[in-house]
């Protein structure tokens, strides 16, 4: 491996296209476009929640439109974060095992974060009050 001075791209050239080269690029841009609107919305929601107590904050997220937008926000943002962090790791982590471990860890953390957030939003939207009350 250390004697290999040709880049992986040079070695791969001529093997043909996997026809998925632009997928990462496209999804990163599509989630970015979605996050222009959702990003402005999340700032508005955060400012609204500042002066609210627990019940009012919960009722705000429970409104169907807000719940749907919040689910869209956490999915788009965790997805966008995973794609962006993936590129940073690809560019700067040159030790193979560490790169692989961080890429998998980032994917797991982002998926779990999104899944847990979506479940929380669904619980808020469907329950009339906090569990146990």
């Amino acid at each position, binding site marked *: *491996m*250390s*004697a*290999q*001075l040709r*880049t992986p791209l040079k070695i791969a050239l001529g093997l043909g296209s996997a026809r998925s080269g632009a997928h990462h690029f496209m999804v990163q*841009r599509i989630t*970015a*476009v979605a*996050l*222009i609107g959702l*990003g402005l919305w*999340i*700032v508005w929601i955060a*400012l609204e929640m*500042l*002066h609210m107590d*627990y019940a009012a*904050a*919960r009722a705000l*997220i429970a409104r169907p439109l807000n719940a749907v937008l*919040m689910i869209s926000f*956490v999915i788009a*943002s*965790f997805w966008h*974060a995973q794609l*962006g*962090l993936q590129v*940073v790791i690809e560019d700067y982590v*040159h*030790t*193979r095992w560490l790169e692989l471990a961080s890429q998998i860890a980032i994917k797991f953390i*982002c998926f779990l*974060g*999104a899944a*847990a*957030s979506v*479940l*929380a*939003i669904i*619980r*808020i939207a469907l*329950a009339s009050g*906090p*569990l*146990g*009350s």
Partner: protein
Amino acid sequence: MPDTARPLSPHISIYRWQIQMVTSIVHRGTGIFLALGLLLVAWALIALASGPDAFAKVTAFSSSWLGLVLLLGWVWSLAFHFLNGIRHLLQDLGLGYAPATFVRNGWIVTIGSFVLTALVWACVLAQRGGA
């Protein structure tokens, strides 16, 4: 240890610092920081679903000095990543590549990020004063 022995150009230490490379580096830096902020969003949502006691912990953290410094950082990071992200999308359409325009847009994004941060924080302070 890196797995390859390919030489790396000493770019950071050689190039004169200019707005083009600063906005590029800061876009990545703010992106990494915002990814950490997403974990706080997830924590807040989980706490909101769990009950008042759990949510009180989020509120306490957000109003502590560490929480406020982090929130200020996240607001600025979001403002910068938001504006520079729009600039990147326009560049993907082939716009804004003339050197003078590129430099000008870099400054618009940088100054704009501080203006947006001030606007959001003004809303926060106005609400705190009014409440």
